[in-house]
């Protein structure tokens, strides 16, 4: 044999290569099939299938002169022959066959490297296999002594290796004619021993990867399907893809030229060329598509082994295994998926005893599913195990310095769970051989990030864990938005782009600046902005972006605006990887050649997000935007820090500030002893925080503009310092007018100003004067108001009155919060609200037995005798006009005193 290999070296090399590919595939299938077989030991079709695969491997090994492999395969085949003969299928026996397959794989790896079978013997395994087969002889149905069968087959094979090959079809037929287990077993052995050698160069039909959970797939594994497919070298496909990419580029180039020549004879043929190219592109892309089941193929075996190793009963369900995706993507998610399934089995699922104790089915389930959703594939890995241990993650995050105690306190469970994606984060109490080898979810997340995907986790303690992975269908050709920045063009992947906003000085959307950070107020949200030119270090970022386009981009939960100078069009681009020399630039994910032949960089939204996170950390670290959306008051407040009149910093909740302006001091007019400025076609009164503030008569004068109900007021300040997210905890009350009290902001004692005090200074009828606040022991208060303005405006007032305030935007929300066990000492509610109004809320609260005693204060902008009467009926303790802060604070005090008395 060895001699034959040397003389026909290249022919044999090819053959060996093909053998390796085929055998590896066959072995993977055997893995899957065996696990399935163990579950359905009576399924003759599965057994036939396994038997045939192993037999083919054995035959081919003989042909290629690989005695070690051949002996192994032979021993395994003998044992499986026993199964066919009716020997009961035990887990032990299957484990033995599986370890034989593992050994075979090891040998194949060495074979691939050295072209030679590695030295060594497998007598241990072969002995065990033979022993197991012999035991079969002692079984109730000892049809034929196992040993003699084995020898017989072996000998015949040796002799008939090269000449007289039998076609695979005949072999198939032989097997097909072979009856299932327990019937006519004596005939079965010789029948398959004769057609011992299939043509070695004839490919074994690749068995399509299937979810073992499906049971209707037996039919598909027969020759028919296989004959319709051919094996193509991956390099050939890759090359084809590259050529198509080139074709797409050339087509784009031609189209580009065509745009400049309106009348041309080329127009029609070019149009056709374009269509054909598009179809070709689609076709070639399809050849790269593989069912995700290919990535799952190894999982049943892994789960089976884990199940044995960990002593847990685990069922692996797989749905949507035929969902197709680009093989490049497939390769990249294979390992992460395996890792996650291991994790679920090891850490997620409880032990049998724990499960029984928890009243769960004894058998734990891991469910994999995949489906398409708008250009993405969604893969979910769910288990019904114990879920994430929030407390442990919290501890670990603290220990690893990922967050401070204060930060963690404010986080929701879901936010805390996200820490598992942080580098080096593993909560497994003990490191097992299964997982917890120092690589964790961060690696998974990295792999997924690299292919432009995202990963999310959803866990319910005691009920299970669900990972959701969202990945693009393909990496090769993507749709991108072509933009301009600093005179160069860049591509931004369309998938990350949410919308485009055009800004100029007079447009509705304007770029505002808060100290160094530019923000866009878009539909009542502050969107952090970052200039592409600044990110790319074309400029220092000093120039205020006054006009341009904002590409609103979303990466995970983070939304930000990328400011660009111009937007061209969207184009299907072929992603080419960056040269290794440039790969360290996190801002780009690749480059591409445009239709006009120019090379441009593809901006990586993930990279931008990271950079943005660093510069606008305040807005990204704490997703209070989302929290504010749902109405549940964010535990932190965005504060605008400024200086006015004294060097000590002052702050005001940012959400109260409508705009930041810088006006020319010379435009300030004095009318009726009041400072005014013409602002948006109206006269806007200017107010000073105290007499120490000088209103400039020249140069730029910064203003904080507060608007409500069509009226605006400008608060004159000396300097805008910063914008920060801090929990607004007014620690020291103030008896100075216009100051609510002091809080620690940016580690510095900062005066929190009371906007409510200044508004009436501008318009006498706006509000009434300031109220001295007294800090009291914290009581919890639920504040319901549909107007964001009033929520923001009154929350500090209520806080200053000594309450821990939770503000929500609607009655329904308040009610569900109360019903779900939220404990509040006091409810303050607006009366006029869309949907359920304040009256209805009060009635609903009164109906709840355990809430009946809670005092309710109604706020209303009007107070008719009827409404006050109705308020009494539904059980309001007090009824305060919305603008009457004094009465509100008095009412709060009264309630507190009442509660103190009651206590």
């Amino acid at each position, binding site marked *: 044999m060895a001699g034959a290999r040397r003389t026909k070296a290249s022919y044999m090399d090819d053959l060996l290569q093909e053998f390796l590919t085929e055998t590896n595939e066959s072995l993977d299938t055997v893995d899957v099939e065996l696990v399935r077989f163990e579950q359905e030991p009576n399924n003759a079709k599965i057994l036939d299938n396994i038997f045939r695969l192993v037999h083919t491997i054995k035959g081919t090994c003989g042909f290629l002169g690989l005695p070690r492999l051949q002996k192994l395969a032979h021993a395994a085949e003998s044992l499986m022959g026993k199964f066919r003969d009716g020997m009961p299928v035990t887990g032990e026996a299957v484990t033995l066959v599986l370890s034989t397959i593992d050994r075979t794989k090891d040998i194949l790896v060495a074979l691939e490297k050295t072209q030679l079978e590695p030295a060594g013997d497998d007598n241990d395994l072969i002995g065990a296999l033979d022993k197991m087969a012999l035991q079969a002889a002692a079984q109730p149905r000892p049809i034929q002594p196992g040993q003699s069968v084995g020898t017989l087959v072996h000998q015949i094979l040796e002799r008939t290796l090269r000449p007289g090959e039998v076609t695979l079809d005949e072999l198939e037929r032989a097997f097909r004619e072979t009856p299932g287990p327990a019937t006519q077993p004596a005939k079965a052995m010789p029948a398959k021993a004769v057609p011992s050698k299939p043509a070695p160069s004839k490919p074994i039909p690749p068995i399509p990867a299937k979810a073992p959970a499906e049971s209707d797939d037996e039919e598909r594994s027969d020759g028919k399907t296989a004959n319709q497919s051919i094996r193509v070298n991956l390099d050939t496909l890759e090359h084809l893809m590259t050529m198509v990419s*080139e074709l797409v580029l050339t087509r784009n180039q031609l189209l580009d030229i065509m745009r400049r020549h309106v009348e041309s004879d080329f127009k029609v043929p070019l149009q056709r060329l374009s269509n054909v190219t598009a179809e070709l592109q689609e076709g070639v892309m399809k050849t790269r598509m593989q069912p995700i089941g290919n990535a799952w193929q190894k999982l049943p075996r892994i789960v089976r082994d884990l199940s044995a190793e960990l002593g847990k009963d685990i069922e692996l369900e797989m749905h949507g295994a035929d969902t197709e995706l680009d093989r490049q993507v497939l390769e990249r998610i294979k390992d992460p998926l395996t890792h996650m399934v291991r994790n679920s089995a090891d850490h997620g699922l409880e032990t049998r005893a724990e499960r029984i104790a928890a009243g769960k089915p004894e058998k734990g389930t891991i469910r994999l599913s995949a489906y398409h959703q708008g250009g993405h594939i969604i893969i979910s890995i769910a288990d019904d195990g114990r879920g994430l241990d929030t407390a442990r993650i919290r501890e670990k995050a603290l220990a690893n310095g990922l967050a401070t105690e204060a930060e963690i306190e404010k986080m929701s469970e879901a936010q805390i769970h996200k820490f598992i994606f942080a580098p080096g984060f593993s909560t497994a109490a003990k490191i097992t051989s299964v997982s917890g080898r120092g690589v964790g979810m961060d690696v998974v997340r990295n792999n997924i990030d690299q292919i432009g995907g995202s990963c999310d986790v959803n866990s319910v303690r005691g009920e299970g864990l669900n990972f959701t992975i969202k990945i693009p269908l393909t990496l090769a050709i993507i749709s991108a938005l072509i933009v301009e920045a600093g005179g160069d063009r860049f591509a931004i992947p369309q998938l990350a782009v949410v919308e485009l906003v055009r800004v100029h000085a007079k447009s509705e959307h304007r770029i505002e600046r808060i100290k160094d950070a530019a923000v866009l107020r878009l539909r009542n949200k502050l969107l952090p902005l970052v200039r592409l030119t600044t990110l790319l270090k074309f400029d220092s970022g000093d120039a205020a972006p006054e006009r341009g386009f904002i590409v609103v981009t979303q990466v995970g939960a983070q939304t930000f605006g990328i400011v660009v100078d111009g937007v061209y069009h969207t184009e299907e681009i072929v992603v080419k990887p960056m040269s290794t*020399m440039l790969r360290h*630039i996190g801002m780009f994910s690749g480059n591409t050649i445009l239709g006009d032949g120019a090379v441009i960089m593809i901006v990586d939204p993930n990279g931008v997000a990271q950079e943005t996170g660093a510069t606008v950390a305040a807005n990204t670290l704490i997703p209070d935007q989302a929290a504010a959306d749902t109405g549940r008051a964010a535990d932190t407040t965005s504060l605008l820090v400024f200086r006015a009149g004294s060097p000590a910093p002052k702050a005001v909740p940012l959400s109260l500030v409508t705009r930041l302006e810088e006006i020319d001091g010379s435009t300030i007019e004095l009318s009726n002893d009041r400072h005014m400025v013409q602002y948006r076609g109206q006269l806007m009164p200017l107010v000073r925080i105290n007499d120490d503030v000088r209103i400039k008569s020249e140069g730029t004068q910064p203003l904080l503009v507060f608007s409500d109900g069509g009226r605006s007021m400008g608060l004159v300040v000396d300097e805008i310092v910063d914008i920060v997210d801090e929990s607004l905890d007014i620690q020291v009350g103030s008896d100075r007018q216009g100051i609510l009290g002091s809080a620690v902001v940016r580690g510095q004692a900062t005066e929190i100003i009371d906007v409510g005090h200044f508004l009436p200074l501008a318009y006498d009828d706006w509000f009434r004067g300031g109220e001295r606040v007294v800090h009291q022991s914290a009581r919890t208060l639920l504040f319901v108001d549909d107007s964001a303005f009033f929520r923001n405006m009154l929350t500090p007032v209520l806080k200053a009155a000594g309450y821990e305030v939770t503000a929500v935007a609607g009655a329904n929300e308040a009610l569900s919060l109360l019903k779900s066990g939220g404990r509040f000492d006091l409810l303050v509610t607006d009366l006029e609200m869309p949907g359920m109004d304040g009256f209805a809320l009060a009635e609903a609260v009164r109906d709840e037995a355990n809430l009946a005693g809670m005092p309710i204060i109604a706020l209303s902008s009007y107070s008719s005798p009827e409404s006050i009467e109705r308020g009494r009926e539904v059980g309001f303790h007090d009824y305060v006009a919305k603008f009457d802060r004094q009465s509100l604070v008095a009412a709060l005090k009264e309630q507190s005193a009442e509660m103190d008395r009651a206590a």
Partner: protein
Amino acid sequence: MTKKTDTASEQFTEYVTVIIGDQLFGLSISRVQDVFIPDRLTKVPLAPPEVAGVLNLRGRIVTAIDMRSRLDLDKRASGQPVMAIGIDLRGESYGLLVDAVGEVLKFPDSACEAKPANLDPRWARVASGVIRLEGQLLVVLDVDRVLDMRKRAIAA
């Protein structure tokens, strides 16, 4: 490595000669893929200073390395002609920007002498030896070292 021709007992190597600044350099011809005039160079923001940009050469994206910058020479005056030597490294295409490309010269390997101790250290990093010509020195560039900019990239 380098293409060797066996004549008698001597091994010969052919060099593509290029001029960078005022100095003559040689690159082993076996490493040179093609010579081209760089066109439509796209700057790569945030790239190491040696990377002049990227360009499209017959559908391939080529990373252009400015050899003047790589060798710490003065910047090329604008309008001055520039040529590029195409190099393939591990499946990626690079273009070394030089001032001019000269003829291909063949030398016996024995003609290539060790780098003089006093060779500018910035050049010594990327040179594998020197060849004495009539009236001038030809510095033989080691393409792998020229393209190995890891240390530089980190420092930058």
